[in-house]
C-alpha cells in the first residue's frame, strides 16, 4: 500500500502544480501569441487562451455530434501487442499496487444501487474480449487485447441513470476523468480485468481499467476505485490541463 501513499504524495504535489498551471495558462501560448499578435499588449495572451479553450469546447460538441455507435475496427488476435506500453503522469515504479482481496469499487451519483462491488462480484459478470487500437494523444498507437464486462451491462446492472450526461472515474493514483454517456454505452466500451488474456498487471491498471476504444488513451482510466454518474461536467486530470475533453477517435 506504500505505493499508493507515494502516489498520494504525487497527487499533493499535483495539487500545488495545478495552481502553477494557472501561471502556465497565462504564460502559455506565448510563442503563438507572439507569432500572431506581434504588436499587441501581452495581456492578450489571456484572451488567446480563453479563445482556445472556447474552441476546444466547440470541438467537444462537434465530436459528440460526429459520434455514433458504429464499431471501431477490430484486429486478429495475432496483431495484439503482448508487451503493451504503459503511460502514467509519473514514473512506472510509482504505479499503485492495489490489494485485490480488499478492493471495492465505490459507486455514487445517479445510480440506484450504490453498493460497492468486490472483485469476485465483478469477475462473475458476463465477459467479452476485444482486439482494438489504442491511440495515444501523443501520436503513437498500439493494438492490444482487453477482456472485461461491457460497460453498458454494468451500468444497467447497477441501475445507473442512462439518460444522465456523464460517467466519471476516480483512480487510486489521483487520476480522474469523465466521459459522455453515449461513449459509455458504446458496445465496445469495456470495464476490463485483463490485457493479453492475463489479469491486468499493476502498470496496466490492476484491478480495473476502462477500455474506451472510441477515445484517446488518456480517456481510458486505470486503477479505477470509484465511479459516478452525473449531469455535472467534471473534467479530468489531463482535460483540466488543456487537453480536449471529448477526445473521440
Amino acid at each position, binding site marked *: 500500500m506504500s505505493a499508493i501513499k507515494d502516489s498520494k504524495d504525487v497527487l499533493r504535489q499535483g495539487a500545488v*502544480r495545478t495552481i*502553477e*498551471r494557472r*501561471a*502556465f495558462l497565462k*504564460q*502559455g*501560448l*506565448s*510563442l*503563438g501569441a507572439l*507569432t*500572431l499578435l506581434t504588436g499587441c499588449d501581452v495581456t492578450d495572451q489571456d484572451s488567446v487562451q480563453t*479563445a*482556445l*479553450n472556447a*474552441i*476546444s469546447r466547440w*470541438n467537444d460538441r462537434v465530436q459528440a455530434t*460526429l*459520434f*455514433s455507435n*458504429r464499431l*471501431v*475496427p477490430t484486429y486478429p488476435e495475432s496483431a495484439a501487442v503482448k508487451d503493451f506500453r504503459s503511460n502514467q*503522469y509519473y514514473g512506472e515504479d510509482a504505479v499503485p499496487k492495489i490489494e485485490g482481496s480488499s478492493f471495492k469499487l465505490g459507486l455514487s451519483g445517479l445510480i440506484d444501487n450504490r453498493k460497492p462491488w468486490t472483485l469476485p462480484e465483478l469477475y462473475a459478470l458476463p465477459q467479452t474480449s476485444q482486439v482494438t*487500437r489504442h*491511440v*495515444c*494523444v*501523443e*501520436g*503513437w*498507437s498500439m493494438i492490444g487485447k482487453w477482456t472485461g464486462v461491457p460497460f453498458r451491462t454494468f451500468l444497467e446492472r447497477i441501475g445507473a441513470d442512462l439518460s444522465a450526461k456523464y460517467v466519471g472515474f476516480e483512480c487510486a493514483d489521483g487520476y480522474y476523468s469523465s466521459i459522455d454517456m453515449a461513449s459509455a454505452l458504446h458496445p465496445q466500451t469495456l470495464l476490463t480485468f485483463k490485457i493479453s488474456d492475463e489479469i491486468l498487471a499493476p502498470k496496466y491498471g490492476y484491478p480495473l481499467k476502462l477500455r474506451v*476504444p*472510441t477515445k484517446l488513451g488518456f480517456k481510458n482510466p486505470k486503477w479505477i476505485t470509484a465511479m459516478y454518474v452525473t449531469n455535472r461536467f467534471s473534467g479530468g486530470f*489531463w482535460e483540466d*490541463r*488543456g*487537453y*480536449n475533453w471529448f477526445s*473521440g*477517435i
Partner: protein
Amino acid sequence: MNTDERGTVKVHPGVVRVTHWINVVAIAIMIGSGWRIWNSSPIFDFSFPVAATIGGDPATSQDVHNELGLAGALQWHFAGMWLLVVNGLVYLVYGIWSGHFRHALFPVSPSAFLRDALAALTFRLPHRLGVYNAVQKALYLGVLLAGIVMVLTGLSIWKPGQFQELAFVFGGYDTARLIHFLGMSAIVLFLVVHIALVIIVPKTLPAMITGRAAAHAPEILQESAG
C-alpha cells in the same frame, strides 16, 4: 484586364488575396503546432526545434507536465484546422465557380513544364505578374493537392474510428500519420521555393496585397488580351 489611370492592372482577385493571407496565418499555426505534436512522439528519430513550434512556453510545460507543451499545441492545431478548412473551402469554391482555376492554373502540360523549368533554371524565364508559367502552375496545383491530402489524412488521424473508411484509404492510422508528415514536408518545401522566389522577384509581394501591378510590361497586356 484594364489599365487604370495610375497605369496599373489587376493581377490578383480580391478573394484570392484575402484567402491567401488568411491561409498564411492558418498554415503557420498548423505547421508550428504540428511540429510540436510531432515532437511528442516522432515517427523518425529527430525533433523540430521547440523555439520554432507553437503551443505555449515549453519550459513551464516541462516543469508542470514533464513534456514540452503538447496540450497547447493540440489546442492550436484543432483551432487552426477550422481556419484552414473554412478558408480553403472559400478559396476552392471561388476558384472553381469564378473560373479562376481554369484561367490561372490550366492548361499545364508536361512539355510546357519542362520548357519553363529549363528556362527558369537558366534564368531566362520572365516573371509576369498575374500570369503563371507552367512551373508555377504545376507548383500551385501540387501544393493545392498537398493541402487537400493534409486535410484528409488529418481527419484520418483525428478520427480513425468514426472516419475509418478514410483512414483505410490512407493505409490505416499509422500510414495516414506518415503521409500527414510527408504532406507537411512537401508544403514546407513549396514554401521555401515560394518565399525564395518572392525575394528574387520582390514586385510580387505588393501585388498580392493590393492586387494591382504596373502595366508597363507589355506581355501582361498581351497575355490578358488572349
